[in-house]
């Protein structure tokens, strides 16, 4: 293997690993706390990408606002004293034809995903918590939720591909004659940062501590006065935001379409099984390991065969370690 190939594999592995880590840590968090598996987690990636696109790019909300801007400008003269105020507003609206950019797009995506995560919890999960067979029922309801969101987005935005702006524009980085796109570099840097923030939140904030407490012993969590029924939706919101961030990053790499996120969900499954459901450090390590396996098998064997290798690995792991490679303990 040449040195360039090695650099390409490492960079690719870091990018894939980052995306899987964002996805899988949310899945793992929800599993550890609520003991439910969220099959709609992939659809949240898509929601994140679309909502960011809607605010940041031309063709989204900016396009929808143009007629309003025009009519404000046209009518401002007749509005008298108010017109002086309205005219700049209308002109400003007309000037943002190209969208608001990612500066507003990303916060909007975070907001949307958090909200969707909350609604999802209330409609698809909450009614079944504590009932017999709830884990299987919630698989079914979240599959239905995923199908609803995928098809709903297609109804709203149509089946045509969209593309998100790249956060950094410019020529790719050259490392040992291997070109690495700036978006990729950004993902490699931002993901560990995001995960570190998650770590700080879980380790040092009161709510984060409460989330971990519920995950480890919900009976005792009740006894120290934690409002357990509030922690469940909170976990869904946090995990949905992580999926949404994954969507924003993916949206800058590939096209945005209603079925996006499904592939990533699959790999996130492999990751959580590999790293042990409910164990966050295991999940993150697992994500990068799977990322590297994927990239190196894509390079050494074939791009098509990389997922095959991964799923075969997953099945073998499950045969010999039915609770995951590092599973068994929850933290």
């Amino acid at each position: 293997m040449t040195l360039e190939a090695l650099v390409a594999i490492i960079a690719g592995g870091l990018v894939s690993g980052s995306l899987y880590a964002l996805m899988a840590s949310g899945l793992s968090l929800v599993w550890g706390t609520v003991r439910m598996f969220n099959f709609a987690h992939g659809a949240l990636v898509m929601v994140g990408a679309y909502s960011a696109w809607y605010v940041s790019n031309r063709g989204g909300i900016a396009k929808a606002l143009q007629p309003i801007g025009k009519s404000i400008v046209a009518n401002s003269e007749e509005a008298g004293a108010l017109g002086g105020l309205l005219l700049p507003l209308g002109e400003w609206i007309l000037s943002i034809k190209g969208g608001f950019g990612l500066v507003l797009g990303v916060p909007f995506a975070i907001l949307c995903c958090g909200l969707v995560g909350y609604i999802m919890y209330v409609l698809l999960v909450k009614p079944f918590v504590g009932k017999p067979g709830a884990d299987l029922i919630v698989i079914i309801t979240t599959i239905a939720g995923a199908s609803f969101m995928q098809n709903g987005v297609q109804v709203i935005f149509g089946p045509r591909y969209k593309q998100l702006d790249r956060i950094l524009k410019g020529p790719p980085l050259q490392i040992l004659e291997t070109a690495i796109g700036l978006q990729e570099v950004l993902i490699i840097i931002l993901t560990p940062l995001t995960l570190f923030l998650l770590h700080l939140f879980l380790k040092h904030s009161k709510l984060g501590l409460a989330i971990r407490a519920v995950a480890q012993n919900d009976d005792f969590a009740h006894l120290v006065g934690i409002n357990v029924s509030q922690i469940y939706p909170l976990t869904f919101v946090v995990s949905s935001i992580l999926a949404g961030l994954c969507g924003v990053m993916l949206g800058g790499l590939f096209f945005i379409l209603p079925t996006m996120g499904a592939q990533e969900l699959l790999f996130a499954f492999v990751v959580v099984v590999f790293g042990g459901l409910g164990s966050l450090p295991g999940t993150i390590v697992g994500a990068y390991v799977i990322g590297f396996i994927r990239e190196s098998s894509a390079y050494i064997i074939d791009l098509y065969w990389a997922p095959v290798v991964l799923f075969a690995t997953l099945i073998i792991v499950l045969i010999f370690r039915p609770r995951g490679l590092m599973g068994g303990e929850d933290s």
Partner: protein
Amino acid sequence: MTWMDEGFKIRHLVWALGIVIFLAIPHLVTDKLLMHLAILGMLYAIVASNWDLTLGYAGVFNFAHLAFFGIGAYTSGILAVKAGVSPWLGIPAGGVTAALASILVSIPAIRLRGIYVALLTFACSQLVLLLLLSQPLITGGQQGLTGVPQLQIGDFRFRESRFAHFYLVGFLLLCSTIFLRRLVTSDFGLSLIALRDFEEYAVARGIPLARQRLLAFLLSSIFPGLAGGVYAHFLIVASPDIFGFSLTTLLLSMVLVGGVATIYGPVIVGVVMTYVSELMASSAWMSEVFGISRGPVRFMFVAVLIVLTMRFFPEGVWGLIKRFSARARGTSNEQQSQSGS
């Protein structure tokens, strides 16, 4: 014991009436779309009711169930397109490959519990899909396998007849339903229920958990495999869409809305749901009401239906029918309704 004789007679009468009506349908219905949907609906009903065996009776969430259907379709399709094998051999071959696949899936799956079964079977079905997509020269890749020959006997082409596909698929559905009902009311069916509801006790009483679950997977795969073969020759294409989230959701809704662990429920609702969802996709008023493309809306509708069913009618349509009919007949027939479940 008179009620039993009566029930026996009534049941035979219902069956006879059903078969007469069934045979008459193609003579009465001339609309091509309706007939097409009826055939599609019966194929889906086969897949859904067989899924009920693992999901409802064994209590195991087998995500790879649709893969059995897909494997049947691709087996028969590939054999016909690439090797010129007659569909009449290809369709049974599809049943055999689906059965083999079910054994492969169940060997790791029976060792696992709850969520891990779902994850493993999901991975298996995606593995099948990825393998199919990775061999575009054989399988047609993303576009699917086109040019699958239609069914014919001598010079008689099935697609040119209003009756042929309808009767063939109807016969398959009848066989599958009788097979499943016999199975679930047999000792084997009871042992599945025992393992589902009282696992530890049942195992302690000597019911072999692994063997029964493996058999449940195996027996639930044969008819979907056969149905998949017929599906490919009926639509003259085998498409990777079979493995997608949307079809899985649609078929899942048939099992759940029909009523888990009833067999009849998924059969009936399978046919009805196909009609409803396809009519929604093609009816003009839907587009007028919503002012949008209709394809995706039906899947949204199906998704809402699933969630509402899980929440408010967990026993499904068949469960409701049974509850009301039991009430109408009074308490004397309680035993019968129990023996039928």
